[in-house]
């Protein structure tokens, strides 16, 4: 750990009383064995020992000399190393006026009844995309992921996306089954034309690769077959989301299901396509009336501080939860089955549960 600037000269010396402050966007979260500092501006996180978490929280507002004294001056070198680390990674700064740097307001509010949606389709789906996207628009939906488990022709894809053009929807993610058409110029033209496209995953591809198309739309080809909702629910650092919105939402609500709606391949309206409860079929039930049903939002309130094991995990506010695949099918508050992280040892293992375990 090296420091780009001499830190503690002003921290414990003469003159103004100088203390260390984390940047407001850098928030420490304690786990059972270690902690993290979530950098919500840069979208990253830094692992730290629980000892540093303690310094940053319980000893907040103390000078470096006062902190060293609080530990009986037994750990002076380690404490200097901690502050070198924080400065080198631009996580905070020394200041004589900490009151000028208030914390972020992490209250979560959204003007949208629904913020995100999944639409699944397979070879037998008969979705009325114009109606679905119109209803999503009425609910204020900002982002949609369209998951095609079976190959789509480009003209079918074009028709499915056409209704998104005039509404408030702001981002589209696609999961598509590979066809040779997806390697051709017509697909590139489609990506260029659909300006709400954000990312595309092409599954069942002959080879894995990544590229960009159009306005730097990320296109990832994977060999894995994504052929049913059962593929979903993975918990892994690649899916961590370290940003203000997700962090604030996860502190109070379920980080996956809150303000989410799904239309599965048969048209059933669910909280997510992997959950068994249907709130009606899109043929005869509007999304609005589904959302209005009393128990539709029941799972929204299960946050990570209420879930066994997760409540002791340092990643709990940047990790996206799953309530469809659980380690204990009978316990709605059990750990996601597809998470292999043990916060008590700080080690990643293959997830224990791979079978579908539905909640009642």
């Amino acid at each position: 750990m090296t420091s780009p600037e001499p830190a503690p000269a002003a921290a414990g010396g003469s003159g103004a009383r100088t203390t260390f402050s984390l940047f407001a966007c850098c928030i420490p979260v304690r786990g059972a064995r270690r902690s993290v500092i979530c950098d919500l501006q840069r979208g990253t996180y830094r692992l730290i020992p629980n000892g540093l978490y303690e310094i940053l929280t319980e000893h907040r507002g103390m000078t470096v000399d006062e902190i060293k004294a609080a530990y009986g001056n037994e750990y002076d070198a380690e404490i200097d190393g901690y502050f070198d680390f924080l400065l080198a990674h631009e996580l905070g700064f020394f200041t004589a006026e900490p009151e000028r740097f208030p914390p972020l307001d992490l209250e979560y509010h959204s003007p949208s009844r629904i913020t995100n949606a999944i639409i699944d389709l397979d070879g037998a789906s008969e979705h009325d995309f114009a109606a679905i996207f119109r209803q999503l628009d009425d609910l204020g939906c900002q982002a949609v992921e369209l998951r095609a488990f079976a190959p789509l022709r480009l003209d079918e894809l074009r028709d499915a996306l056409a209704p998104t053009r005039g509404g408030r929807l702001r981002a589209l993610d696609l999961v598509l089954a590979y066809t040779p058409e997806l390697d051709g110029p017509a697909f590139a033209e489609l990506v260029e034309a659909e300006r709400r496209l954000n990312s595309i995953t092409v599954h069942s591809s002959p080879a894995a690769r990544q590229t960009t198309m159009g306005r730097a739309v990320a296109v990832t080809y994977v060999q894995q077959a994504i052929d049913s909702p059962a593929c979903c629910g993975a918990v892994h650092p690649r899916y961590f989301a370290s940003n203000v919105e997700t962090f604030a939402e996860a502190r109070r609500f379920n980080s996956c299901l809150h303000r989410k709606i799904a239309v599965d391949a048969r048209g059933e309206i669910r909280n997510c396509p992997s959950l068994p409860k249907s709130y009606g079929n899109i043929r005869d039930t509007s999304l609005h009336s589904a959302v209005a049903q009393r128990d539709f939002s029941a799972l929204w309130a299960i946050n990570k501080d209420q879930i066994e094991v997760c409540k002791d995990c340092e990643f709990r506010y940047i990790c996206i939860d799953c309530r469809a695949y659980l380690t204990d099918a009978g316990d709605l508050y059990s750990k996601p089955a597809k998470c292999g992280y043990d916060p008590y040892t700080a080690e990643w293992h293959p997830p224990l549960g791979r079978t579908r375990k539905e909640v009642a």
Partner: protein
Amino acid sequence: MSDEPGDGQQLFDQLTDEGRELVPAYYRLFERRPAGSSLPQRLASSAWYQAPTFACYAFPKPISRCRRHDEP
């Protein structure tokens, strides 16, 4: 550095490999690191996201999570 919308592609071309990997991102305009790197390292917010050439909003978290960990 200008933050006019027309500079976006040019700025994206200047991003480091690491910077280009920072997707999803909100807005594709860039700021330099204060420490003096000559290359823009990361993406920064800007009101220009609404400009027609910058339809760049991305939802702040993954909507579904289907991909295995042993592929890109």
